[in-house]
């Protein structure tokens, strides 16, 4: 176990960034999002949640797939190069790391998404435990331990002005090796961390959403949930914006579009899509989800029913609570789960 004083983190970032790209929470115009580290970036490790999840480090909001260049009657197709350089994401929370696992099950199965796979291969995740979880968090419901981001490459904790650093994988070890001379070893660190973890878990117990029950969502409930009249009520305040999907660490839908550059020809790119949008899955004949109710239902059915049905019961929600914070109409997955629960209770 290693540790480094918080005030020396800049040196650590410098050292990492000297070798590879470093993404971490950066405050820009008042908001914290993951961004590339630069000397003048305002790193913010105190804000619990970045506005957007860090999923775009692996699955960018938009990326070019290939470019078609026209020359007279000939058309040349130039595929976009895959990510070849290593990079580090620092400061991901346990829920966000779990979010990447959710994405993996979509993009790393056959057919393999080569763009995503290349980024995953080259990225090292350094996760940071949540010092002060908040009322919008419900990660525990989905089996995430805010105190122990154990599925990252490196797990870290900030305790009393010290960052504790624990490599967990080969990638993590390699990264540690390259910056080791900035660290001090701490034999008693395990104890310190355990105490911190206990404190975090204590807070988690007190949070209002952490005891949300998922009962009734597992098993063969597809048709029952799909046809439930409750959706008719739930969707009504929904404005059909894409905020929930765009801040979500697990939403993985994308659209593929063409951009006519006028000179080069056409760039084909993909960008995040949102099931809340009226033209989501729009086809030539029209749309099979005609109303906002159907689109709204799609999002939650996907997260709580379809995805788990295809992935050994793993939900496509990690309880980060971003949708809870950001929905303009104060709708969110918690309200949906609770509404069904309440209804179940009454029946």
């Amino acid at each position: 176990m290693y540790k480094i004083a918080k005030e020396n983190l800049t040196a650590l970032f410098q050292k990492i960034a000297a070798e590879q790209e470093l993404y971490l929470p950066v405050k820009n115009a008042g908001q914290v999002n993951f961004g590339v580290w630069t000397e003048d970036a305002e790193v913010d490790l105190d804000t619990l949640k970045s506005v957007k999840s860090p999923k775009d480090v692996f699955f960018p909001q938009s990326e070019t797939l290939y470019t078609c260049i026209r020359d007279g009657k000939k058309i040349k197709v130039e595929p976009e190069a895959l990510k070849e350089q290593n990079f580090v994401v620092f400061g991901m929370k346990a829920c966000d790391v779990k979010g990447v696992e959710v994405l993996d099950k979509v993009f790393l199965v056959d057919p393999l998404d080569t763009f995503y796979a290349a980024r995953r291969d080259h990225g090292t995740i350094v996760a940071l435990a949540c010092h002060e979880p908040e009322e919008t968090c419900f990660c525990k419901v989905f089996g995430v331990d805010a105190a122990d981001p154990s599925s990252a490459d490196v797990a870290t904790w900030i305790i009393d002005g010290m960052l504790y650093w624990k490599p967990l994988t080969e990638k993590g070890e390699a990264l540690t090796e390259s910056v080791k001379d900035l660290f001090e070893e701490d034999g008693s660190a395990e104890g310190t961390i355990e105490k911190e973890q206990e404190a975090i878990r204590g807070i988690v117990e007190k949070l209002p959403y952490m005891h949300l029950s998922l009962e009734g969502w597992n098993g063969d409930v597809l048709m029952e949930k799909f046809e439930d009249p409750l959706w008719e009520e739930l969707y009504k305040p929904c404005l059909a914006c894409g905020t929930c999907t765009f801040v979500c660490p697990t939403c993985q839908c994308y659209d593929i579009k063409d951009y006519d550059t006028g000179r080069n020809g056409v760039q084909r790119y993909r960008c995040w899509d949102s099931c809340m949008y009226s033209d989501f899955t729009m086809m030539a004949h029209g749309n099979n989800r005609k109303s906002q109710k159907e689109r709204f239902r799609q999002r939650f059915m996907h997260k709580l029913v379809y995805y788990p049905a295809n992935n050994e019961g793993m939900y496509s929600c990690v309880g980060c609570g971003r949708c809870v914070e950001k929905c303009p109409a104060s709708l969110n997955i918690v309200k949906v789960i609770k509404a069904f629960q309440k209804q179940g209770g009454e029946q």
Partner: protein
Amino acid sequence: MQRIGVFVCHCGTNIAATVDVKKVTEMALHEPGVVHAEDYQYMCSEAGQELIHKAIKEKHLTGLVVCSCSPRMHETTFRNAAEKAGLNPYMVEIANIREHCSWIHKDIEEATEKAVILMRAAIAKVNLDAPLKPGESKVTKRALVIGGGIAGIQTALDIAEAGYPVDIVEKTPSIGGRMSQLDKTFPTLDCSSCILTPKMGEVNAHPNVNIYTYSEVESVAGFVGDFTVEIRKKARSVDMDKCTGCGVCQEKCPSKKTPSEFNRGLDTRSAIYTPFAQAVPNVPVIDRDACIKFKTGKCGVCSKVCQAGAIDYDQVDEIITEKYGAIVVATGFDMIKLDKYDEYAYSQSKDVITSLELERIMNAAGPTGGHLERLSDGKAPKEMVFIQCVGSRCADERGKSYCSKVCCMYTAKHAMLIRDKYPDVNVTVFYIDVRTPGKNFDEFYRRAVEEYGVNYIKGQVGKVIPQPDGKLLVQGADLLDNKQILKEADMVVLAAAIEPNPDVRKIATMLTASIDTNNFLTEAHAKLRPVESPTAGIFLSGVCQGPKDIPETVSQAGAAAVKAIGLLAKDKLLTNPCTAHSDELMCNGCSQCANVCPYGAISYEDKEVNDHGVREVRRLAVVNDALCQGCGACTVTCPSGAMDLQGFSNRQILAEVDAICR
């Protein structure tokens, strides 16, 4: 994907001398959709059009780009050529590589590069062109002539003679216009009213002509073939049907202090008046601003003396609504105001007059009974000075930049008439140039100089100074002798510039006819369509289009009539298919487009739509194709982009932008 043919015109050397037409043709083949490209000497020629025909047939073209002169010149030519070969005429776009390229650039490489870009933009546009079909609209077989001067009278008579009903709207109480104020006419010196009065009688009596005097156009709606016009018949206070025109009322009217408009304010008239003896209709009007009855409620003399009982103090303005197929503007002119020309002492001395005032003085029915005399003291003048170009050909903003065209000739006329009638009067004319282009015009002028001894001095007058003894000191320059001239005169006559009545601006706005900075109505083409306004169905007659003398006015009046007759003779008109249309699925029914439509072409209806499977009744904008003129104001107001303009669609203009910025 279209199959586009590109044709590059050399226009002799007009284009080919600065644009490498071969290169442009070759570059065309690199563009998407282009399957054929060729260049030719004169695309607009019979042979050029034959090339288009052949290519359309052989290459099965679906669109054409002609790189040539301005579309304002030959777009119609090429559209017609395309149509003859079976292609929709709206699948043709013009790249203007002459006016916008070869004529303004000197460097061949630069001009060629630009021509290629302009061609690309046109190709991009054709790629998104859709075949358009003009709609049809009806023609109301009735014409309106605005203005009852000689231009309006002639136009009305010609249209009426062709068998179509015509209405004349005249602002003043009588038709006749400026010509009725003239004494003699050049170059024949026949009496103006002798030739005008019969015309006035003729038009008044014509069964197809209906005259609204003392009336103004209130509003104009509609479009070519189907105008709806509101005419305000101002309250005349005299019943037109009852009045016998005996004139007793005018004699007895106690209010006689109003300056006479007809005599240019040189004398006065009564409150109830006909402007002049030969007025048509010979029915007086009561000038309510001058009438004692209207001002104080007491009087009523005219009513008492009228045997016919025609006086009606309670008459009110009447609005008549009438439909017309064609409108002819014949609003004429007036002299400019001379308040900015203090140096000529016009406002200081009664003996400095304008030429139109001189016309009235020379006229037997004028304020002096036709005697040439000084208005200040009634003495006969011995020395007369005429100053030309007062406010015409003027470099500063006090006057007009243009030549008023009639002044040189009428001054020669005045000089000649004076010398003829009063041989003891010396006449001096200060001029910049003497302009006499016209049949027998120069001969006329030379007679003034050679036979009548009129003293012409090339030079301008700097100042006219009234002297204590009542004479006028004229300071001028003789440019030929290069000397200053000081001349004492008894009368000075100013050839003031003529200008369209400023009110014509209001009429032009109602008609949506364009107007230039001098308030002359713009013709559709300066050379080829001089009597038509760019606004369809509006024709121009007389000085409202530009300065003219009487024969020119009459011939233009006839030409305008012929154009109007040509329109009225049609049973149906094809409407411009480049109109706005609204995409039902995107329309919000918010009414913003209707707010900006100048033609009231947009209305709303509740309609059931099927929006990708969602069926609902929605409030939707509907464009009336016959009313829409295709300006596009609605398209930009529409936030959703539901409203688009055919022939100039959003995507087409964007494609042009893209092609240019490529």
